[in-house]
């Protein structure tokens, strides 16, 4: 199972929008196979880039308000937030090197 902390509709504003650091939110669900595949890859990226990017997870089944707000219709969806703004979106599982390349600006 993932090491990433869970965020919810209730904690979204404080944990994501109000955060001082760069946060990647992994929108996921139990029934989503590609989400399970990408989860350990995100764990590894978080561990290798501690202090640069914080990775959290939002369960789309349990948190419909945030899921609707960001018009998520496909998961895994990975959204990067900086200063309350969604600065990057990646949809769909990717191998680790491909994810690292897409996130390069936040991992430097």
């Amino acid at each position: 199972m993932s090491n990433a902390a869970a965020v919810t509709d209730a904690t979204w504003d404080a944990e994501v929008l109000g955060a001082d650091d760069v946060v990647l939110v992994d929108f996921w669900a139990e029934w989503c196979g590609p989400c399970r595949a990408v989860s350990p890859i995100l764990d590894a990226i978080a561990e290798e880039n501690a202090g640069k990017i914080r990775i959290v997870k939002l369960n789309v089944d349990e948190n419909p308000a945030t899921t609707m707000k960001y018009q998520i219709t496909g998961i895994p969806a990975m959204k990067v937030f900086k200063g309350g703004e969604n600065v990057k979106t990646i949809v769909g599982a990717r191998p680790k090197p491909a994810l690292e390349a897409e996130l390069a600006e936040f991992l430097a």
Partner: protein
Amino acid sequence: MAVENVIIIGSGPAGYTAGIYTARASLEPVLVASSVDPGGELTKTTEVENFPGFPKGIMGPDLMEEMREQAEKFGTKVVYDDVTALELDGDVKRVTLGDGTVLEALAVIFATGSAYRKLGLPNEDKLSGHGVSWCATCDGFFFRQQVIAVVGGGDSAMEEATFLTKFADKVYVIHRKNELRASKILQDRAFDDPKIEFIWDTEVVAINGDAALQSLTLRNLVSGEESALEVTGLFIAIGADPRTHLVHGKLDLTDVGTIAVAGRSSRTSLPGVFAAGDVVDPTYKQAVTAAASGTVAAIDVEHYLAALPQELKEYA
């Protein structure tokens, strides 16, 4: 570093079946299954009703789990990484993985399947995950009580449309022709479904929306007339292309883009390199034909290895 007997690239029915057969032949195969997509396209389907031996049907992801287990049971070593480069000429083949590991083997079975075709329209990538999808079982959940469309006329399009009626209020099926390519049983199921409406002789010419899909622009191919269709979801099921980018310029391809093999065998244009499954098959593309093709490749590999000079065999 040890040289393997055989490396199998791909983890669909062809790859796993080649694993079962080569493992039972004591070749200790290594199977590279991909990091994020192990099990292949069948993991994105629901009920598989036409795989022999499962009269009650079996879920696609479950079938692939069973195949993996069966391959591992006889000693297939499954590696969850992606192939990034291949050296296929020479007696010893080299396979580079995403983490930088280089594997060597006397034979390679290439069973990478096919990748979903895109429409090739401007907003298609931008709205992917925001209304545009290639996988009903993955994303259908997000379209409860909405009006959505499926484009395509084959088995996958009918399966997706029928599956999506569980969630959506209405599913349009947009097809370029006025008849379907899908099998009769899937056609009948779609025709009988009150939530499905067909839009014939029509293609999608634009995908409209800013942050999320709002509408499609359609063109009737008979009258030339264009119209708008308001939908929040578009599922693209217009077929798939063989996944051959790793072997471009290395192996001969056919004029339809599949890997060329000799006759009914799996032998490619390079000795020691074999290909199986949808990557060699422009016609049938079934789980069971891919599995059979994996068997052919496994037996071809056995014969190839048996005929190698003794000094090469001693590598492995």
